[in-house]
Structures are given as C-alpha cells and as structure tokens.
C-alpha cells in the first residue's frame, strides 16, 4: 500500500470508548505537527481521525465500549512528504463500498463523518483485514499534489 512510509513511528491502542477520543486527537495533532503541518491542518487531521473512530465505535462495534482499535501513525518523507495514518479494528467487516457519505443537500443529523474524512485527507481507503475487522488508511500530503486523474491541483 504505502511505498514511501519511511518512519513507522507511533502506534496507539485504545478501546472503543468515546471518552478516549480526546486522547487520540491530542496524539494525532502532535504527530501531525511534527510532520510539518500547521495548526489548522493538525486540527483537521485529528478531526478526520476522530470521525473515523466515531464510526468504528458506532457502526463497527455497535457502541460496545470495549472493542480494540489500533492507530498507527507514520511520517512520510521521500517524494511526497506527509502523514500516513492506519486505523484497524476487530469490528464488523463490511463491504468498503457501503461506507460512503450521503448527499449533503439533504440536511439532517448524521451522515457527515465520511464526507469530513474525505474532505480533509488526500487518500482514504477502507479494506477488510485478513481475519476480522476493517482497516482504514488515511494519507495527507504536506504540499498539494497534482491529482492522479490528470487534473492539476492549484499549488
């Protein structure tokens, strides 16, 4: 998956308890800062992780608060510096295609998490883990990158 994740630095293991979200956010923000992101970006990256964790707690573990969640953070250097965050759980395995954001014009509570994650992060990919649970890989580049599908992004 990640060809240039050069520093497999930090792993955080928590249980699926909402009161631990603040701790995960604090860690993610500090590591993002260390990777060179500014304060606003650090806040956004921890928001994306928070949303992913909320979804695991609510949909994956059905609000059970003792499920295991593993968050691995690494600084990417090489050609595309940035941060890579992998979130793994032992929860429900679902078809990755069913995890998608809803139409934002329909204003109602809920259905925003996946949208927020995709807005903030440059790469978002859900896969099933080998034996059980899901794996979510999130990447954010330090500098805007020309998108893969031929469109130049504005730098």
């Amino acid at each position, binding site marked *: 998956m990640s060809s240039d994740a050069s520093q497999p630095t930090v792993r955080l293991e928590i249980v699926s308890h*909402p*009161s631990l*979200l*603040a701790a995960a*956010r604090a860690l993610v923000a500090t590591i993002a800062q260390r990777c060179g992101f500014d304060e*606003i970006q650090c*806040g*956004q990256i921890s*928001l994306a992780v*928070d*949303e992913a964790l*909320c979804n695991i*707690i*609510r949909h994956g573990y059905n609000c059970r608060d003792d499920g295991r969640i593993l968050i691995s953070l690494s600084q990417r250097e090489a050609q595309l510096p940035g941060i890579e965050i992998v979130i793994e759980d032992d929860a429900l395995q679902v078809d990755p295609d069913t995890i998608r954001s809803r139409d*934002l014009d329909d*204003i*109602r*509570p*809920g259905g*925003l*998490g996946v*949208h*927020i994650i995709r*807005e*903030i992060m440059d790469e978002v990919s859900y896969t099933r883990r080998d034996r059980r649970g899901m794996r979510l890989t999130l990447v954010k580049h330090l500098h805007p990158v020309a998108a893969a599908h031929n469109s130049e992004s504005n730098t």
Partner: protein
Amino acid sequence: MSNTQELEIFTETIDDAVIVRPVGDIDLSGAPALRQQLKQAQETRPGRVVVDLGEVPYMDSSGLATLVEAMQIARKNQGKLIICALQQKVRSIFEIARLDMVFKIVNTRDEAMTL
C-alpha cells in the same frame, strides 16, 4: 466514572430566548449531554434559541448532528436557532460540512439576541 474533562453546559433564559452555552469539546462523548440540554431548553417552545460556542474549542460531526436536530425542532416550533461566537477551528468544520450557510451564524451573543 470521574471525568473532569466532561463538557459543561450552561443554560440561561432571557425573555423569549434561551441561551445554551457549552464549555469544552463537543465530540461523541459530550454530544449526548448537549442534545439533552437543547431538547430540554426547547420544551417551552422559546422564540429564540441561541447556542453560544465561544468556549468550544473543538466540535466533530456528533456536535453538528446535534445542532441540526435542534434547528429542526426550532423550525417545527416556528422559533429561531442562532449560533454565535464560533472559534476559527470550529467554524472550519461547519464549512467542511457545508453547514455554514444552513445555520444562522453570527459573531457575538448581542447580535444573536437582536437578529
């Protein structure tokens, strides 16, 4: 369970308006309390509900969902729901969620009271 970091929520009634002022992060762990306080504040069908976010440094989509629900209740009651005093970081999540145009958002509580 002891948890000092818990979101605190203050409610105040002035004439026809109810002001709800949460203090702390609004995430999946704090949103249920906010939801309950907002529901309670809206039971009397106030003409105006002001949500003062001046002391909320962080909000995630559970917070947004709670506010959307409160707005729907306010509409049903033919009242107003106004949000004020957003910190920059919190404003940015309204923008990401494209809710900055959906809610009535003003800078100060005074504006929220007179709008």
